[in-house]
């Protein structure tokens, strides 16, 4: 309702009879606001601390931006040390894209299966199965990667087993549930009228899926894929166990490479806080954080498109 301006005194007079319902509403408002303020404070402090530590490499230690972002030599203990993070950045992107490439078709197929083909079986078996996949902790994935995928690759594909390929495989299994559940939600939310209109015209199921359903939910599917990529980009332990961690841009899928997260976990404990070696790792964490923002931005753009 449109209210006229209230003078402070008037407002106070009005608040005077502290009736029960007014007190209650104040309690509710204050309590929930505190919670929200806490949320905001959390993110502000995360951004502040990670940024201030991450910037130290450049501001305090005088490493140049260009050397860090485009340098290909990562040798923090050499003299003079080199802090080229490009191999790790490239490695992160590489495994992320590969994982998305492997997981997306599988996930979208699974989502289609659940919503378009066999909804009953899909809902009862596949969906819980996928939720379970998402519940398996990443250290267990790492363990599986090391005891199952790496030996398999070594014996049947060649190379050392350990490498980009193994990392991408492990990650792809980890992001399967993310993409699948977003895709399944999007498909389920599609107005049933869309499908029915197509069926009523005599289109087959695949024609309906391919020409009506998929194009309509495409932005949502992409959102799911980006969410999966965000998860893959930030995953640390499982990747670190199987990717090999050599600070080089790999030339083949079977070659060892490193990611931002793997370099961070490898070095964080053995470097002294405040040393240049340690600060460089925080810069990598800063890159991770900035990438999170980028992923969210992409998702937001996609969602805007989704509204048609």
């Amino acid at each position, binding site marked *: 309702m449109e209210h006229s301006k209230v003078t402070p005194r008037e407002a106070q007079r009005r608040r005077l009879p502290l009736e029960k319902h007014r007190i209650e509403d104040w309690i509710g408002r204050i309590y929930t606001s505190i919670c929200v303020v806490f949320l905001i404070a959390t993110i502000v402090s995360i951004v502040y601390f990670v940024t201030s530590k991450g910037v130290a490499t450049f501001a305090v230690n005088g490493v140049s931006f260009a050397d860090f972002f485009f340098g290909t030599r990562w040798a923090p203990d050499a003299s003079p040390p080199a802090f080229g993070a490009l191999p790790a950045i490239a490695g992160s992107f590489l495994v992320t894209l590969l994982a998305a490439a492997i997981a997306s078709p599988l996930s979208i197929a699974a989502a289609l299966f659940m919503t378009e083909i066999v*909804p*009953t079986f899909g809902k009862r078996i596949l969906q819980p199965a996928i939720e379970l996949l998402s519940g398996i902790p990443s250290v267990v994935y790492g363990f599986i990667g090391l005891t199952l995928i790496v030996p398999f690759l070594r014996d049947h594909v060649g190379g050392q087993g350990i490498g980009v390929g193994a990392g991408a495989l492990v990650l792809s299994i980890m992001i399967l549930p993310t993409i699948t559940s977003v895709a399944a939600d999007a498909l389920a939310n599609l*107005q049933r*009228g*869309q*499908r*029915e*209109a*197509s*069926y*009523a*015209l*005599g*289109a*087959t199921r695949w*024609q309906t899926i391919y*020409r*009506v359903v998929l*194009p*309509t939910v495409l932005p949502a599917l992409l959102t799911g894929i980006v969410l999966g990529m965000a998860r893959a980009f930030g995953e640390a332990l499982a990747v670190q166990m199987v990717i090999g961690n050599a600070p080089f841009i790999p030339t083949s899928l079977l070659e060892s490479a490193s990611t931002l997260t793997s370099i961070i976990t490898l070095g964080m404990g053995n470097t002294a806080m405040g040393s240049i070696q340690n600060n460089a790792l925080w810069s990598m964490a800063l890159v991770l954080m900035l990438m999170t923002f980028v992923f969210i931005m992409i998702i937001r753009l996609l969602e805007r498109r989704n509204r*048609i």
Partner: protein
Amino acid sequence: MPMPFSTEDLSIYYGEFQAIKNISMGFPAASVTALIGPSGCGKSTFLRSLNRMNDEIAGSRSTGHIWMDGIDLTAPHTDVIKLRQRIGMVWQRPNPFYKSIYENIAFGPRYYGIKNRKQLDEIVETSLRRAALWDEVKDRLKDSALALSGGQQQRLCIARALSVNPQILLLDEPASALDPVSTGKIEELITELKKDLRIVIVTHNMQQAARVSDYTAYFYLGTLVEHGETDQIFTNPEKNSTQEYIMGRFG
């Protein structure tokens, strides 16, 4: 032989619940049949089963027969897809594809193998003209269909249904979400179209049923209570409950 388009002893179940109970009725050619009845009586379910759209709902199943030119549409080996190409359908809420106006109409014919651009253009124009929409949209065929008003969208959906030359048109409360002007247009359209087509329409609006239909069927709790010429049903129904419904529309 039964009437060229008719149901025989048709029952439809959702799980255990029987939504349609042994209905046998025919739909004469070049005429409009209106289905009326209180909410939840099964009108939509019955209508949707006529092109076996109800099959798409998990948990629904049917017994009985639907005859179309001597073919039993419910027989297991019947080609549902083929039959749907001969039966058009329009829903209560307009549901254009999230595509351009042109693509909405060209979608069906293209799947029937018509690739020739000229031929498609022609089909689009004819269909839109038949749905009395051509003049309003001819300059913006490439625009998104969702930019149209509700009434225009609904006529677009009718045009889309017409694009594949159906012999039967099923309409489920096609005007209930529309304003009076649009409603008037749709009703005119129905009267126009029935010259070439069998039309079955579900409506809650008695006036509408009286205005557009030749035959009326009154449903109640899944059964067909009364079915006959509209004039007779509205002026002199056999059953008391029909009269009550039409006069008072209880509930």
